[in-house]
C-alpha cells in the first residue's frame, strides 16, 4: 500500500495538492480569516512536501520513471500524454520547492495579519507552489509549459498584491530618485517574462516538428534522429537553442532580460522569498538542467556541432549577469533590492556552472552538480534572508538599509540567523554557500574556461563585500542611535531559523554532500542516460583542488576586510572615498542606475509604445477610416451629383450624348475587328 503510494501516486499528489489547497483557501473562511486560510494552504503544501520526501529514496538508486495518463489527442500524430518524470533532478527540485514553500507559507500566516486581499493571497500562493511543482515534475514540454506560465502569472499577481498602490508600498527612491508602484512592477515582470516565454514556445514547437514528441525522455533517447534532421538545415539548431533559452533567461532574470527582478520585490516579503528561493527564478535553472542532457547528447555523443552553442550561451550570459548584478548590489540602499541583485548574481553562477559543464567533458559532473548544489544552498539562504528582511522591514517600517539602525540586543534571533545566511551568501566556509561556489569555480577550471573562472572569482569577492555592507548598515549603525524594537514572533523566526540552520548544517557536511551528489549524478549520467562519461573524462588534478578554495578564500579576505572597516568598525568612511574620486563617483552613478540597461529599455520600448499610440490612431487608423467610411460615400455622392447635372433635359445635348456614344461604339467595334 505504502509502496504503491510511493511509487505511483506520490508525484501526482505532490503537484495536485497545492492546487486543491488553492481552490479551498479561496472559498473557505472569511475575507479576513488569515489563520484559517493560511492553515489550509500550509497543510496542502505540507502534503506535497511529505510526498516529495517519500520520493527521496529514489535518488540513491537512480533510474528514470515516467508515469503518464492520456491527455490530448491530435489528428495525425502521437497523442500528448500528461505524465510525471522521476529522476534525481526532479526529485531534488521537488523537495527543495515544497519544503521552502511550506516554511514561507507558515511564516506568512503571521506576516499577512491585517493585510487586505487574504483570499487572493492564499489562493495565488498555493497556485504558485502548485505550478512550480507541476513544472518540475512534468514529463513533457506542454505540461511543463503550463506550470511555467502559471508560475509566471502568479508572480505577476503577487508582486502586484498591493494593487491599490498606497504610498507606503512604493519601492525605489530615496528621493530625489523616482519611485515605482506595485501594480507597475507586477506588469513589468509579466511582460518581460512573457517575452521569453513566447520565444521558448516557438523553440518547443520547432523541436516538436522535427522530433514529433514533447516528451523529455523520448527527446533525449531519439536525439540522434531528430537532431540529424535539424542539422540538415544549417542554423536551425542555433535558432532553436536561442529561442528555447529565451524562456529560462527571462524567467531566471539573466542578462539581457533581467530588468524585472529588482522591481519584483514590491510584493509582500514572503512572496519575494518564494520568487527568489523556490518557485520562480529557479524554474529557469531547472529547465536548463533538464535540457542539458539532450544537448549534451547532441554534441558530445552524436557530434552535431551546432548543439554545442547551447553551453557557451548560458555560461557567458550567466557569468555576465553574475558580475553586472553583483556590482549593482554594492551601491543599492534598499534592503530587498540588494537581495534581488544578489539573486540574479547567484542564478548567474548556476547558469555558468551548467554552461561550463557542457563545454568540456572534464567538467560535466562537477559543473552539473555545482549548479544544482548551488541551487539548493541558494534556496536555503536566500529564503532565509528574505524572511529576515521581511521581519526587519516590518519592525522598522523602512525599506532602506541606512535607516535601520537595529541592534542585536532587541532582535537576537534575526541577528544570528541573518548573519548565518549572509555569510553563506558571501561564500564563507563552512557555510553551504562556500562549498557550492567552490564546486562552480572548480568546474570553470576543469572546463578550461579561465576567463569565466576569473569573472566568477571576482564576483565572489563583490558578493562578500555587499553581504557585509548590508549587515553592517542594518545592525552596526554608525550614528549609534539604536532603535528599540520588540517583537520577533515565533511563527516568523522559526521558519527562517530552520532555513539558516540548515545552511550551516549542510555546510558542515558540505564535503560529504558534494561527494554524494557526485555519485548520484555520475550514476545517473552513465547508467541511466548511458552517456559514456568516465571513458572520456579526465579526473581533475589535485592542483585544481588546492587552487580553487585558496584563491576564493583570498578573494573573500581582499573584499571582506575593506567592507568590515567601512561598515562594521567604521574605521573609514566609504562616502568620503567615493566623493573624493571622480572615477569612483561616475562608477557609483553608473552602478546606481543599473548600468543604464533598465533606463535604455524604458526609453526605447515603453516610451516608444506611448509614442506609437497617437501615430497609429491619428495618422494610420483615422486616415484609413476616413477614406473608406467617409471618402468613398463622398465619392459616390459626388458621382451622382455629377450625373444629375448631365441630365439637363435639353434635346440637343441629349442628341450630342447619343452621337458620342455611337462614335465610340464604332471605334470599339473597329478596334476589335
Amino acid at each position, binding site marked *: 500500500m505504502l509502496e504503491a503510494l510511493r511509487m505511483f501516486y506520490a508525484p501526482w499528489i505532490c503537484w495536485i495538492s497545492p492546487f486543491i489547497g488553492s481552490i479551498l483557501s479561496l472559498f473557505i473562511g472569511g475575507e479576513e480569516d488569515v489563520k484559517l486560510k493560511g492553515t489550509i494552504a500550509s497543510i496542502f503544501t505540507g502534503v506535497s512536501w511529505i510526498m516529495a520526501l517519500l520520493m527521496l529514496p529514489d535518488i540513491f538508486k537512480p533510474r528514470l520513471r515516467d508515469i503518464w495518463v492520456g491527455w*490530448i489527442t491530435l489528428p495525425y500524430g502521437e497523442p500528448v500524454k500528461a505524465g510525471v518524470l522521476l529522476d534525481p533532478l526532479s526529485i531534488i527540485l521537488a523537495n527543495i520547492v515544497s519544503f521552502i514553500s511550506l516554511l514561507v507559507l507558515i511564516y506568512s500566516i503571521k506576516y499577512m495579519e491585517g493585510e487586505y486581499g487574504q483570499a487572493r493571497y492564499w489562493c495565488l500562493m498555493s497556485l504558485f507552489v502548485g505550478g512550480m511543482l507541476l513544472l518540475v515534475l512534468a514529463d513533457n514540454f*506542454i505540461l511543463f509549459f*503550463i506550470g511555467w506560465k502559471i508560475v509566471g502569472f502568479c508572480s505577476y499577481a503577487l508582486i502586484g498584491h498591493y494593487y491599490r498602490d498606497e504610498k507606503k508600498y512604493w519601492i525605489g527612491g530615496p528621493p530625489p530618485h523616482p519611485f515605482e508602484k506595485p501594480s507597475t512592477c507586477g506588469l513589468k515582470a509579466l511582460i518581460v517574462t*512573457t517575452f521569453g516565454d513566447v520565444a521558448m514556445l*516557438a523553440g518547443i*514547437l520547432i523541436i516538436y516538428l522535427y522530433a514529433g514528441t514533447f516528451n523529455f525522455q523520448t527527446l533525449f533517447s531519439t536525439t540522434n534522429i531528430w537532431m540529424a534532421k535539424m542539422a540538415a538545415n544549417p542554423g536551425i539548431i542555433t535558432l532553436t537553442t536561442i529561442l528555447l533559452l529565451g524562456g529560462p533567461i527571462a524567467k531566471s532574470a539573466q542578462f539581457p532580460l533581467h530588468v524585472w527582478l529588482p522591481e519584483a520585490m514590491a510584493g509582500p516579503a514572503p512572496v519575494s522569498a518564494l520568487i527568489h528561493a523556490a518557485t520562480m527564478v529557479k524554474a529557469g535553472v531547472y529547465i536548463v538542467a533538464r535540457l542539458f542532457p539532450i544537448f549534451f547528447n547532441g554534441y558530445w555523443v552524436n557530434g552535431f556541432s551546432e548543439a554545442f552553442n547551447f553551453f557557451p550561451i548560458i555560461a557567458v550570459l550567466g557569468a555576465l549577469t553574475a558580475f553586472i548584478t553583483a556590482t549593482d548590489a554594492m551601491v543599492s540602499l534598499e534592503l530587498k533590492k540588494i537581495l534581488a541583485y544578489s539573486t540574479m548574481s547567484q542564478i548567474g553562477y548556476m547558469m555558468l556552472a551548467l554552461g561550463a559543464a557542457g563545454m568540456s567533458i572534464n567538467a560535466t559532473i562537477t559543473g552539473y552538480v555545482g549548479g544544482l548544489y548551488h541551487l539548493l544552498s541558494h534556496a536555503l539562504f536566500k529564503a532565509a534572508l528574505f524572511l529576515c528582511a521581511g521581519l526587519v522591514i516590518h519592525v522598522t517600517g523602512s525599506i532602506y538599509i541606512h535607516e535601520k539602525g537595529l541592534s542585536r540586543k532587541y532582535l537576537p534571533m534575526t541577528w544570528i540567523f541573518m548573519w548565518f545566511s549572509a555569510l553563506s551568501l558571501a561564500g564563507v566556509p563552512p557555510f553551504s554557500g562556500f562549498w557550492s561556489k567552490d564546486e562552480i569555480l572548480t568546474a570553470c577550471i576543469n572546463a578550461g574556461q579561465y576567463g569565466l573562472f576569473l569573472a566568477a572569482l571576482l564576483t565572489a569577492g563583490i558578493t562578500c563585500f555587499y553581504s557585509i555592507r548590508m549587515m553592517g548598515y542594518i545592525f552596526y549603525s554608525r550614528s549609534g542611535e539604536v532603535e528599540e524594537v520588540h517583537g520577533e514572533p515565533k511563527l516568523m523566526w522559526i521558519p527562517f531559523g530552520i532555513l539558516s540552520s540548515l545552511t550551516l548544517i549542510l555546510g558542515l557536511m558540505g564535503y560529504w554532500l558534494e561527494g554524494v551528489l557526485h555519485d548520484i549524478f555520475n550514476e545517473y549520467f552513465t547508467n541511466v542516460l548511458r552517456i559514456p562519461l568516465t571513458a572520456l573524462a579526465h579526473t581533475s588534478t589535485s592542483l585544481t583542488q588546492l587552487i580553487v578554495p585558496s584563491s576564493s578564500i583570498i578573494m573573500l579576505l581582499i573584499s571582506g576586510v575593506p567592507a568590515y572597516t567601512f561598515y562594521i568598525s567604521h574605521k573609514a568612511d566609504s562616502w568620503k572615498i567615493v566623493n573624493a574620486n571622480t572615477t569612483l563617483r561616475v562608477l557609483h552613478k553608473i552602478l546606481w542606475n543599473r548600468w543604464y540597461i533598465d533606463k535604455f529599455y524604458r526609453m526605447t520600448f515603453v516610451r516608444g509604445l506611448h509614442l506609437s499610440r497617437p501615430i497609429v*490612431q491619428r495618422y494610420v487608423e483615422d486616415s484609413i477610416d476616413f477614406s*473608406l*467610411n467617409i471618402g468613398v460615400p463622398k465619392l459616390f455622392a459626388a458621382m451622382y451629383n455629377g450625373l444629375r447635372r448631365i441630365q439637363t433635359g435639353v434635346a440637343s445635348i441629349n442628341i450630342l450624348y447619343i452621337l458620342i456614344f455611337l462614335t465610340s461604339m464604332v471605334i470599339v467595334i473597329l478596334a476589335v475587328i
Partner: protein
Amino acid sequence: MLVPNPLLQSILIPLIAAIVIAIIGKRVKEVAGWISCASIVYSTIMLILVVVKIWIDQNPIYEEYAWSELAKLKFGLLADGLSLPVALIANLICTACAAYSIPYMRHRIESIYGGDDWGLYRLYFALYTLFVVGFIGISLSTNLVELYLFIELVLIPSYFLLDLFGYSDRHRVAIMCFIWSHIGAALFLIGVVLAYVKTGSFEVSTLSSLTGTYAFLVCFFILIGWLVKTAVFGFHVWAPWVYAEFPTCAAPVVAITAGLGSYVMVRLLIQHMIETFRIFSIPLMVWAVITMIYGAFLTLAQDDVKRLCACSSISQNAYSLLGIASCATLGVAGGIFYSINHLIGKCILFSVAGILVHQTGLRDMRRMGGLASRMPLTAALFVIGAMTLSAIPPLSGFQAEWIMFVGIFRQGFHGSTTGLVIALIGIFATFLTLIYTFWPVKRIFFGPLPNELRNIGRAPYIMTIPLLILAIISLMLGIYPDILMRFLNSAISASQSY
C-alpha cells in the same frame, strides 16, 4: 435519439420564441427577456443532447427537409465534429448575453429614451433571439443558399439593434455595419452563384468537383466575402465602430459572426477546395500577420474600454485566420479552437466593459482606476478574459495557441523560409496580446480609486454569473482540451488529408 429532430428544434424554438416575444412581449415586460433566455437554453440543451450522442458513437447527425422542388433545394442540417462545437459555443455565449441583457437593456433604454419602454424592450429580445437562429443556421446548414439566408438573417438584428440601442453616432454606424456586412455577403453570393452555374447544385459537397480557374474564382469570392466579415487589415475599418457602438450586451454576439467566419472558411474552402485554397495560403498568412500586428498596435492606442475590446477582435480573428491559412491539419484544428477560445474570452471582456459602463457610466480608461476594490469579482473576470486571450494556462487559450502554431510552423518548414519567418513573427505577435490585455487591467482596476468612483457598487449577479460559467468552460477546455479536440479530430480526419 430521445428527442425527435433535435437540430430542427434547436433552430425553430428560438424562431418561434422571437415571434412570441414580438407579439406578447409588451404586456409581459421583463419576462420577455426570460422567454428569450429560456428558448436559447432549450436549443442549447438540444445541441448538448446531440453532442452526447456524437461523443458516444462518433457518427455525424444529418437531418434533411424538403424545401424547394424547383431549384432542387433541400433544407439540410448537419451536426458533425466541426459544426457542433461551433454552434454550441455560439449558443452558450448567446445564453450568457441574454441573461446579461435583462438588467442591462433596462439601463440602456432608460439612458437613451428616458424611462422604461417595454415596447422597445420586447423588440430588443425579439431581434436578439433571431441571432441565435442565424448562428445555429450558419453552423449547421449544408447548402449554400441556406447558408446565405442565415447570414443575411443575422444582418437584420445587427442593423436594428445598433440603430435603436447603440451608443454615440449610432445611426451612421448602423448604416456602416449594414453596408459592410452586405458587401461581404454579396461577394460570398457571387462565389455561390458562380459555383451553381458550373455544378448546377447549391450543395456544399459539390464544391469539391470544381476545378481550374472556376474553382479559383469561387474560392476567391467566398474568401474575400468572409475576410470582410472577419475584418482583416484594410477591411477592418467597420469593426472598431460596430463592436464599440453596439449595445454592450449584444456586442459579443456580433463578434460571433466574425468567429463563424473561420468556421465557414474551414467548412467550405478547407474541407472541399483545399487544392485551390492552397494557392492563397502564403498571401493570406502574410495578410493575417499584418492584421495581427496592426490590430495589436491599434488596440494599444485605445483609451475607450469598448473600443479596446473591439480593436482586439481584429487582431484575435487574424490569429485563427493565420492558423487556417496554414492549411496544415493542426493549424486548422487549432484555428477553430482558437476562434472558440477567442469568442469566450471576448465575451467576458466585452461584458465586463458593459458592466463598467452599467455601474460607472464611464468608457474612458483614463478616468478609471482602482476599481478592483469596489468590484472584485468583475476585476477577476476581466483578468480571466485577459488570460484567455493572452494564452495563459490553465485556461483554453494556451491549448488552442500551441496546437494552432504547430500547424503554422509546419507550413513554415514544409514550405520555405518565408513560412518560417511568418510563423516566428506570428508567434511573437502574441506577445503584444499580453500587453494590450494586461495593461488595461492595471489602468481600470489597479491603482488608487478616483474620488468620483468611491460609491460604485458591485455588479448584479445576473450579469456576472453567466460570465463565470463561460470562464469555467474555458477552464475545462484548458485542462482537458480533448473535450473539443476529439470532435475536431473526428471531423478533420474524416475529410481528406491535407
